[in-house]
């Protein structure tokens, strides 16, 4: 559990180091103070690094403390699998969206997600929700609000 707790401060430490490296590669400004675009990010980088280190120390000190209910639920295998599947489906939706367009990719995404979450027994509800949500959002956004959503083939 401590690994999960440490993940966030470590992530922010890595982020601040990567950020520092990127700041060093920033080109100088040709107008005014050549280093002007660097000052603000640099101050942020130092702040992020320092507070992430303090946070890391605090989290390390908490070792042995009772885990919160949320943390216990997160590290359960079933929760991790559900979240993992949802994220994978979201990524698949992202890849499909450009090629298949909004309507087809949303139908596929929703139907797979609903069947995964509700099972085969509730097939009527899954199909109905997929149909209603996909077509009504398509109609509302594309026709009523005139917001262009990609059609078939991107």
């Amino acid at each position, binding site marked *: 559990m401590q690994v*999960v*707790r440490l993940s*966030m401060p470590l992530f922010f430490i890595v*982020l*601040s180091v990567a950020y520092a490296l990127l700041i060093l590669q*920033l*080109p*100088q*400004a*040709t*107008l*005014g103070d050549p280093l*002007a*675009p660097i*000052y*603000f*990010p640099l101050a*942020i*980088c130092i*702040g*992020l690094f320092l*507070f*992430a280190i*303090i*946070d890391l120390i605090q989290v390390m000190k908490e070792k042995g403390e009772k885990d*919160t209910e*949320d*943390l216990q*639920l*997160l590290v*359960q295998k*079933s929760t991790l699998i*559900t*979240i993992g599947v*949802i*994220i994978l489906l*979201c*990524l698949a*939706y*992202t890849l499909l*969206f*450009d090629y298949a367009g*909004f309507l087809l990719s*949303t139908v596929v*995404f*929703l139907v797979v*997600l*609903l069947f995964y*979450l*509700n099972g085969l027994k509730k097939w009527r*509800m899954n199909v109905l*929700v997929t149909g209603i*949500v*996909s077509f009504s*959002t398509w109609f509302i*956004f594309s026709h*009523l609000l*005139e*917001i262009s*959503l990609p059609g078939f083939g991107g």
Partner: protein
Amino acid sequence: MEWSIIIDGLFTALEPMNMVWLIFGALLGTIVGILPGLGPATGVAVLIPLTFGMNPVSALILMSSIYYGALFGGSRSSILINTPGDGSSIAATFDGYPMTLKGQAGQAMSIAAMASLFGGIMAIFGFIFLAIPLAQFALNFGPAEYFMLFLFTLSAVVALSTGKMIKGFVAMFAGLAISTVGIDLQSGVHRFTFGVPHFTDGINFIVIIIGIYALGEVLYNMFPKKKGQQPKNDQAIGSKWFTKEQWKRSLGPIFRSGPLGFFLGVLPGSGGTISSLLAYSTEKQLSKRKDEFGKGAVEGLVAPESANSSAAVGSLIPMLTMGIPGSGTTAVMLGALVMIGITPGPLLFENSPDLVWTLINSMFIGNLILVIINILMVGMLIKVLRTPANVLYPIVLVLSFIGAYTLGYSTIDFYLLIIAGLIGLLMRVLDYPVAPLILALIVGGEMEQNMRRASIIYESPQAIFFASPIATTLFFLTLLSLSYPLILKLFKWRKGTGTGASM
């Protein structure tokens, strides 16, 4: 003050199309608020794309009605199933749910709705008299003052992350770091764009907001349900109307908590959660029936409801007059306003008085409509609670993706959305406050530009802090807000209590 402008605003608010958006937003907001896990910020964030094809007045009416509709709705789920929709509805569980257990759910909901109505109305009057002077005062602000104001806002939000200030700072700096992505407006230097043209305008903060609030919320709700969180809809509603005795006991708390909530709402960072909790503890201190609190005391329900509602109106003042979002929801709204071409700031009141006063009048009408919705449609609203989570959350996911897509018409934003969702989930589980990250992300760009402009004017960075009496005052307020938790700790230590006033 020109009352004719206010009257014109009333007529504009009463136009049929605006009324349709108002009722639609109030109903939608109530439903969003009732559904456990979906708060006003998520509600507004997910529904932002709806406002893109609208005129600015209707868009603002829709967003604000969703906002206070969700606040009303949030307390419904607090009262009925002991599950607050968001932080500002927590206090409604203390006495609202015990009232439900006593078979007084209907009475609890109707009196809470009346408390929200009166809290909202008091705050609207506060808005009418305070917003213009504040906007005129804001005209004195130059780059140094704005920079200091942003600094103070961020420090206040971090300082109010009680018990997790370090994590608040980490979140704030992370938000500021994201805000630096994109082309630097003063020098034209591309910063952290990785050669991706989509990032030259920076990372759209609404994508991050939708990711953290909506996707993060969906993932969080995929956790197995905790004990005591299972919706129970078998509670008897009882009478839908409160008694004369209950109303008599409520009047004092409603009229004390309304102004309290309003002033806390105006302060950056305070927001609905703190004002409702403070109103609750204040009423408990003042009450002759202290022992009834927590067991279904009507005062314990109406005080936070009145404060919460008026804080929501109060928090719109710094957002509209100075472009300073004081809470997560107003941050989301500010982002949406900018997207639809409204620039909040002191000149908004001079350049678009119709917009501002239509909004104020719509808030007044909206509060009345919400009371009707929440009292007459109690039975129907309770059915909303029965929406299976496994149906609701996939729909929220699709709306989030549409929202992200319509902002930049690129699926690159989908990846950012997914990453933000995962970060939002981890931040929630590991107790990192989200508000500092969101606020920093939104004000970061402006903060940097003002800092650089001010350092050119005053020729040294440290001179910014003492550029004017306003800047110096804000500098000391920043120091005070950051040292406030330490002072409080010291004070408690000297008193030897070790704990705060119990709720």
